[in-house]
């Protein structure tokens, strides 16, 4: 606008989230009641073999004891990368068994697969390709419950899903507010079994969500509140969660952090770090959390360097400075002189990833994560083509993206 006030409140914003959250001791036992409130009598459970093997599904099944709700089927063959083939297969089972609702138990893949199944069932379509992209969905969805078993993606509160189509060699992205689950259940029992390194990587994904949401151009007072709460919880619990995975309190704190970060970034969106992480994941199969963990400090470095180019109203540099407060805590924040706080925030993240590297071997360079040098130009190109780049507060050229990837290599 013409009369942009120099104010931290955006001139305009929207925030939306309609997911009911249940968190804590024996939270699973609430699912049958919640389903009955949604008019559901026969849910299908979508999960994977790892979850079943870890004994997590039995907690879910047990929570239905003595209720009137029948579990239509437990589909436990979800692969690591969700695909349209699996989605169609599950939709078939759903229809055959006469199910009326969906429960996803797992990490990003199981949740995204379940979202895909919900699309196919609700839109009554047999071709996901036709519904791909933003805002293509039109029909209300089936009651959908998500029980995350990793603390990172925040998928339990986001309105997006990525599903691969191997025969056409495309990754289909779906975004629609209709896809939001009705219910997210955080039960400390469900994240206890995550191995140290996956815990570290997924936690860093959550931290990246919160940090990018806090400095993105769509940030607003509501997303800020969620983002800073997430950063504080991660600061206080990430190392413990990696070191002492059996501690249920720490696990629940991290699950909450991931959910809060999800609430923040599904409204404020993510930027260059995620764009580069998507590219690195797509080309060199670096796990999403690992890529984010490596790229986050470099992405912030780029933002700081280019902060002069960002629109004044975005307060880019000041926002990075402000990240230091939840990231390092008030005492540390006060010790850092005001003009060094942006760099201080980057340093705090570098210190954290270096520490995680020592504890569980989480890579700090792309070269340690299986990226080969001659794929860097391709990664840079994919970075500037990624949808997340639209939410970068500064314009990023191919050359700048390449320099970023090289610095992280």
């Amino acid at each position: 606008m013409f009369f942009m006030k120099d104010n931290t409140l955006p001139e305009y914003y929207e925030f939306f989230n309609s997911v009911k959250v249940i968190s804590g001791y024996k939270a699973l036992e609430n699912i049958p009641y919640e389903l009955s409130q949604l008019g559901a009598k026969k849910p299908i459970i979508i999960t994977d073999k790892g979850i079943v093997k870890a004994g997590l599904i039995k907690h879910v099944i047990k929570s239905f004891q003595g209720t009137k709700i029948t579990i239509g089927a437990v589909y436990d063959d979800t692969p690591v990368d969700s695909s349209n083939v699996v989605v169609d297969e599950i939709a078939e089972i759903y229809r055959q068994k006469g199910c009326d609702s969906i429960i996803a138990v797992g990490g990003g893949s199981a949740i995204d697969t379940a979202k895909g199944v919900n699309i196919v069932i609700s839109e009554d379509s047999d071709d996901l390709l036709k519904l791909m992209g933003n805002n293509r969905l039109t029909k209300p969805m089936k009651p959908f419950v998500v029980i995350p078993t990793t603390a990172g993606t925040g998928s339990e509160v986001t309105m997006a899903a990525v599903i691969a189509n191997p025969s056409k060699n495309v990754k289909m992205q779906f975004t629609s507010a209709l896809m939001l689950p009705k219910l997210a259940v955080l039960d400390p029992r469900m994240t206890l079994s995550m191995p140290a390194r996956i815990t570290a990587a997924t936690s860093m994904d959550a931290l990246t969500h919160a940090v990018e949401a806090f400095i993105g151009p769509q940030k607003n007072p509501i997303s800020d509140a969620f983002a800073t709460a997430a950063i504080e919880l991660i600061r206080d619990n990430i190392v413990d969660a990696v070191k002492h995975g059996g501690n249920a309190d720490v696990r629940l704190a991290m699950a909450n952090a991931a959910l809060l970060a999800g609430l923040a970034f599904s409204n404020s969106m993510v930027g260059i770090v995620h764009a580069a992480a998507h590219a690195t994941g797509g080309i060199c199969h670096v796990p999403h959390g690992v890529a984010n963990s490596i790229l986050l400090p470099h992405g912030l470095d780029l933002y700081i360097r280019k902060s002069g180019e960002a629109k004044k109203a975005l307060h880019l540099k000041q926002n990075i400075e402000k990240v230091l407060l939840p990231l390092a805590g008030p005492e540390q924040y006060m010790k850092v002189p005001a003009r060094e706080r942006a760099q201080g925030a980057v340093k705090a993240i570098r210190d954290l990833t270096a520490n995680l590297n020592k504890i569980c071997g989480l890579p700090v360079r792309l070269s340690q994560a299986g990226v080969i040098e001659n794929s860097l130009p391709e990664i840079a190109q994919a970075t500037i083509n990624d949808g997340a780049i639209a939410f970068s507060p500064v314009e990023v050229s191919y050359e700048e993206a390449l320099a970023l990837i090289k610095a992280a290599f």
Partner: protein
Amino acid sequence: MKKKKEYREIVPSESWFKSTLVRITLYLLGLGIQEACNLDPRAKKEMEKLPDPFTFSIGIHDGIAATVQKKGGKMKYLRVINEKIQADLELRFKNLEYTYLAMTGRMSTPNLGYHFRQYIKGDLARMMTMIRIMNIAQTLLFPNIIVRFYIKKVPRLTVRTMINRVIAYINIFGLSAFK
């Protein structure tokens, strides 16, 4: 209390000035996209990434829109907007007012996106391509001082851009005047 018949329906009025201005700008933008893809090698390269055929439409939610179509390797502005054409990718402003403010440079296009005052229907990666083409189209059509409101980073004004700008003006205004 009012009598029942006194409660009247309010049919929305037309805002002729705003909708005419939006119509003209959309028309120019549509032609600009076509010209950019013909004249500017960067835009051409971007266009080559799109599937063939491919239809893109930009306009108002439930209202007027400019539609361009890539067919046979060429980008063409569809002058007559055929209702039957289902665009593969759509960019829609949620209200005429937002469109008007955007087109008169009082609301920047990146901001419109950030503020959810517009929505995208279709593949986001393709939208990135179209945004880059539209950025080029806008530098082709409008003086830099206006372009500044539309895009995050204004490219340097080169002799090439100036020449292309003149050719585009001739093509758009010249051709449409004599056709």
